[in-house]
């Protein structure tokens, strides 16, 4: 792995990217049951039960109360902090009938319209977004 001497250095770099949570082991462990809950929504029978009574369904999963509330509030940035991974969380917003653009825009603090306009204009520039410590 060019540029890293060991796993510690490799992982430390990941904390230096603005507005980004890399799905490391630490996050995977924290979010384990949250992500497994989200995964369960791939089955139509589970989607039905979830849509009928979200709180009852989510209480069946061994997650923290904080994780449960963040799911119910569809607070995706919070869910990333709590160990959620976007591909797992996608089962939640897909069940809501939301597209990736709609769901992802909620994490940026922009309206869907502004976010889509930014994308059509070429997307968010990497300038100044590469590093927290540096400012390139």
């Amino acid at each position, binding site marked *: 792995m060019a540029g890293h001497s060991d796993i510690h250095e490799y992982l430390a770099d990941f904390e230096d990217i603005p507005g980004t949570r890399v799905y490391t082991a630490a996050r995977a462990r924290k979010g384990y049951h949250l992500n*497994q809950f*989200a995964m369960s929504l791939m089955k139509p029978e589970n989607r039905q039960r979830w849509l009928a009574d979200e709180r009852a369904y989510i209480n069946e999963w061994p997650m923290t109360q904080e994780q449960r509330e963040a799911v119910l509030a569809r607070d995706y940035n919070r869910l*990333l902090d709590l160990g959620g*991974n976007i591909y797992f969380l996608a089962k939640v917003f897909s069940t809501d009938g939301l597209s990736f653009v709609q769901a*992802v*825009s909620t994490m940026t603090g922009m309206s869907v319209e502004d976010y889509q306009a930014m994308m059509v204009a*070429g997307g968010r520039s990497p300038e100044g977004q590469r*590093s927290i410590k540096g400012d390139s």
Partner: protein
Amino acid sequence: MARITAGVASSHVPLLGVASDQGKDRDDYFGPIFAGYDWTREWIAKPENKPDVVILVYNDHASAFDMSIIPTFAIGCGERYAPADEGWGPRKVPDVEGHPDLAWHIAQSLILDEFDMTIINEMDVDHGLTVPLTMMYDKPDAWPVKVIPLAVNVVTYPPPSGNRCWALGEAIARAVNSFGEDLNVQIWGTGGMSHQLQGQRAGLINAEWDNMFLDKLIGDTQDLRHVPHIEYLRETGSEGIEMVMWLIMRGALGKSTKCLHRHYHVPCSNTAIGHIVLEPVDGSVPPSPTLEGNNEAAQAAI
């Protein structure tokens, strides 16, 4: 003797599947994206180019594998694969037919060649695999090619290094070259290009970096095998890491490549679409450090 005749790379954005399935693929938004695949659709339909088998490198997006099991490299040796239900019902596209003879041959060869493969006999395949088929073949009643799924973990860190992916490609080429049956085999690398689907930095696109990456897939440079993960993350967004899968495709094409077709478009959903068609020029790959030679006997034993 089987041979790898071409390498294809393509983004696999789920929205492209939706656009195709709902007949929106030629509207104002999607038209320019799909137009960039017209050349490839025509090329791949010609008898001299038509692959018998595609080794389709992709990643599973929390569809076949949940968090209970995370294989780094998983090769599909099964007879067929159904489209996965990703939360809105399975795509109404044909099942994917496998090629167990070649898949098992490759799997066995790779393990002898010291790649620690996970063999999969049953799984559903998600947009990572079915969208590239749509882009290349439109809407047939049955996919006109057999597919060997090669699923790479690029979700939970660390994914395999670029160097490991390139080396896997080289080992796949050795394996294909030692398969007795006469088969036209293509290898596809999918995912990317720059995109970030999460957090405040979502929507990041880096056209300059993406085009540098496309440039370096052509010819004989091996620079890309040394790009560290952190560079993908910083430069191309957290999901840009999917591009390491393209290096398996590139490695399998051997020493030097020629570009037949290239397409780049921003945006599709949150993503920069990239697509390239490559042909091996000098398709030689280094010999295995552990397995030498190449005889065709005993094929019947597989």
